[in-house]
Every structure is written in C-alpha cells, then in structure tokens.
C-alpha cells in the first residue's frame, strides 16, 4: 500500500469517526428523552398523555419509515439553515441525526418497557414522583438495554455515514466511491471495506462490554 493511500484512509477514517461520533451524541441527546417520553405518556403509564403520545409516535414512525437517501435530500433546506451548507462532513451530520434520533427513541422505549412494572409500583408506594421514577428506576434498570440500543445505532450510523459521504460528506464511504468505483482502484475499495469492518467490530465489542458491565441481573 502506498503512503498516499494510507494518508487518504486515515483522513477518511477520521472524518467518518467525527461524523458518526457527533451525530450519535446529538441523536442520543434527542432520542433518549424522546424514547422516555414515548413510554411514560402511554395510556396507563406514569404520565399518561394519550393524544401527545399518538402524535409523537406518528412523527417518529414517519421519520423511521423514510429511506435515508430520500430523507437526506428532503431535509436539505433544514441542513442549510443549520450549518449554512448542504455539502461536507458537518452538513452530513444533520440527516444522520434526524435519521438516528427516532431510531434511538424506539429502542429506548422498548428497553424501558422491559422494566418490571412491580419496580415502578414499589417506587410509587414510596412516594416517588414521575420524574424520580424515570431517573431513579426506569433509566438505571433499562441501562443495559439502552447501551445495546446505542451500539446498534452507532453501527447503523457508520453505514449511513458512508451513504452521506457519497453525496459529498467525506469519510470512508466517499473515499471508497471516488477511488474504488469512479477510478477503478479496486484496492482502495477493499481497504475501505476492511477499515469499516474493523471499525464496526470495535464499536460492537465496546458496546457489548458496556452492556455486560451495566447488567447486574445475573449472579456475580
């Protein structure tokens, strides 16, 4: 491998990591609270708001059912308004966040739903407020599941970021398309795929480890 190729790969890797990292953090900041809201506002839950729940649920579903490539194009005006341009790594984070946040919300909601209702009841019997139930019971108990959900999201984001890269966002996807596909440099394509495989593997391992450490449900 030439020095040049290694430099290209490193630069692209950095762009991908930055793009995915920033969008994952932003998506989690939006998606986790959204997932909590989706659960607690359900009919019969601790802050039941059925109408609100239905509306938010519909918006989340709409975002989730739109193919990423269409979503990316459709929200170009929003991207321009937020980052001033629709091209480049920074611009790519906007559609990535918009796609990942609802995904995280649903995964978080599902993890929270797994928490034994007896625990919520015990907290209520102690006089816990709905906010205290969320902070002290639901989220800590669901944390292993939430960690697993975030891992899945980051892995998906790596895939999406390659797509975003292809339309001018930079990163590994962009590199693979430009050199491997448009210039017929097969070795670049192979190198890009290899780097992506290692990246996903690392993310998955770290996520699994975190979920395992957070899970106190099994003996020792």
């Amino acid at each position, binding site marked *: 491998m030439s020095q040049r190729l290694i430099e290209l790969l490193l630069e692209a890797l950095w762009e991908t990591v930055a793009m995915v990292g920033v969008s994952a953090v932003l998506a989690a900041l939006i998606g986790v609270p959204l997932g909590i809201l989706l659960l607690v506002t359900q009919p019969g839950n601790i802050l039941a708001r059925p109408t609100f729940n239905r509306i938010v649920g519909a918006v989340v579903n709409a975002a989730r059912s739109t193919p990423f490539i269409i979503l990316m194009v459709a929200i170009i005006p929003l991207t321009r308004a937020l980052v001033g341009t629709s091209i480049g790594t920074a611009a790519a984070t906007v559609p990535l966040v918009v796609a990942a946040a609802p995904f995280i919300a649903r995964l978080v909601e599902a993890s929270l739903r797994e928490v034994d209702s*007896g625990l919520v009841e015990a907290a*209520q*019997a102690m*006089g816990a407020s709905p906010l205290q139930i969320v902070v002290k019971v639901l989220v800590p108990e669901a944390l292993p599941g939430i960690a697993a959900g975030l891992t899945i999201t980051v892995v998906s984001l790596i895939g999406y970021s390659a797509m975003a890269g292809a339309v001018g966002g930079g990163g590994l996807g962009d590199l693979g398309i430009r050199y491997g596909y448009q210039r017929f440099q097969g070795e670049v394509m192979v190198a890009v795929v290899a780097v992506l495989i290692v990246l996903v593997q690392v993310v998955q391992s770290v996520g699994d480890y975190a979920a395992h450490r957070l899970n106190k449900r099994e*003996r020792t």
Partner: protein
Amino acid sequence: MIVIDDLEKEFGGPSGPNPVLRGISLTIEKGEVFGIIGRSGAGKSTLVRCINLLERPTRGRITVAGRELSGLSGAALRAARHDIGMVFQHFNLLSSRTVQGNVSLPLELVDMPRGLRLRRVDEMLELVGLTDKRDAYPAQLSGGQKQRVGIARALASRPSVLLCDEATSALDPETTKSILALLAEINHTLNLTIVLITHEMQVVREIADRVAVLDQGRVVEQGAVFDVFTQPSHPITRSLVREVLNLELPERVSSRLRHSPQTSPGLVMRITFTGPSANEPIVSEMVRRFGVSFNILHGHIDYIQNAPYGTLTVEAGGSEAGLQAALDFLRVKSLKVEILGRVAAPDRAVA
C-alpha cells in the same frame, strides 16, 4: 391507625364495571398486626393497594394516622406515602442497585443528606440482619434475603404502617418462618402497625393479633385470631382453618359414618380443647369414670399465639348412659363437642 370506611372499588371491564371491593369497613389499631386473609381473587391485593392509594377507591374513605388519603393527590399523596411502607410478594428490588442502594432509595426521594442516609441504611440493614450483604446485588441473594432487603427498604423512611402483600408467599416454609419472626420482632420493637395480606392461615396464626376474612370483596368475618381460629363461623373461614389444622376425618371413618344408621352404638365426636383444659388428662378420666371406650381417630394440638388449641376426633363405645355421662362431663369442662355421627360398631377400642 387505619380506618377504612365503606370502601368500594370497581374495575372497568368489557361487560361494564366489575365490583371487586363491596363496602369494606375496617379499623386497624396502632401497633397491631392485622391479617387479611382470603382465597385468590377475593380482592386482598386491591384492598391493600387502596390503603396507599396505588388503587384509587371508587367510593369510601381511607384514613391513615388521622390523615384522610382518599382526597389526596400529587405531592400531598406522595408525602403521605412516605409514612406507609410496603413489602411485595416478588420483592420488587432494583436489580441495578446494591442492597445498600435499594434501601437508600426511599431516602433519596426525600433528599435526605448523604451522611444521614448512609447511617439510616446501615441501621436498617442491622435490623434485618443483612449488614454483610450491603454491597451485594439482588441477583446474588436468596429469596429470604431479598425479602429482608424489601423490609429494610420499606422501613427506611420510618413509616408508621407497614403493608405486606403476600410477603412470604414466594418463600419456602423455613424462610417464611424467619421472615414472620422478623416482622413480629419489628412490630414489637418499633410498635409498628402491620397489615398482612395472605392466603395462608398459617401466616395469620403465626403473627397476627386480629384477622379479617375477605370473600368476593366483602369482609365475611373478623376478630381476634384465636377466636376466629377456634370458632370460625363462615364456611370460607372454616375451610381456611381446616387446611391448617387438618381436621378432615380419614376417608375410612367418613364412609362408615355415611353408611351407618343413626341408631348405631358407636359415637363419633370431635372434642376441641382450648386453653388450660388442653393440658388435662380428660380422656383417661372419662374411661375411668364412665366405662366408655375410646378409639382415637385423629388428633392435633396446635399453638395459636402461644395458647394451646387441640382437637381430638374419637369413636366412643359403651352404654348409652355411660356415653351420656361422658358428654355431660365434657360440657361441664366447657369443652366444645361436636357429634359427627354414629357408626355401626366401634373399631377395636383403645384405652
């Protein structure tokens, strides 16, 4: 301490409202252990959940420590709940927190300062005998230990009332005994009012002072445990008591009872001993004085709140006059005698 006044609870169902509690009135005194017993589905859990308003009553009033709860909501209700501890059948401990963290939770809810909180947690763990498990997670504990954590957690906020919904139903008999002993000890040392929901008469007998029997959402019988035990009046109570005391006649005897004419010479009767007479040699005295023979079919002595309580089912044979004299003798001794029937011929007699 707890006054339940004409409580009704309905659940909305597909075929209209489903009444689960129908006009329950109970008064539970400060410092007593009050048992509520009934078959599964009688409404026991609903009743106890109404006491801390986990279920909102459809009608009626709940007063705990002089404060009417049924009108409260929001922060006022949450404050009132700090004064009512609750223990659950399946413990309901947070798996993500250590024993210490679980016991500390109710104190965190009221923002107790950390130093004070940790001291209180240690005190509670000492009380339930789990000091050495402070840093263990619930998954590393046995059922009995988990329930001890549950009790420590319920007591951490120093409530004046402890509600226990089938607190021992998930435990084996040995562990049940030790948990009941702990509850009795807490009741004595802290003068804590305990409401104990159970479907097992055994549990009520072990530690309750008074008991109410619940059937289809109604209190069908209530009173001191000893009285309800020795003189159950409602069929449900009788069947619950019988399960514990195992008073059923052996099938061999009951079939002979069914098939013998009422004029048969053998008399089958059940004698109930309570209090001091349980320790007297009644049977041998009757044999000596009236020439009556006894064949013991079934016997049982039990202790309810440390008072002996026994039943003896016997088949008596002898002259009519002798039998009559024996019955009179038992009545003079104020023993309860139930004539169960007559049998054709006494079995081989003993005594």
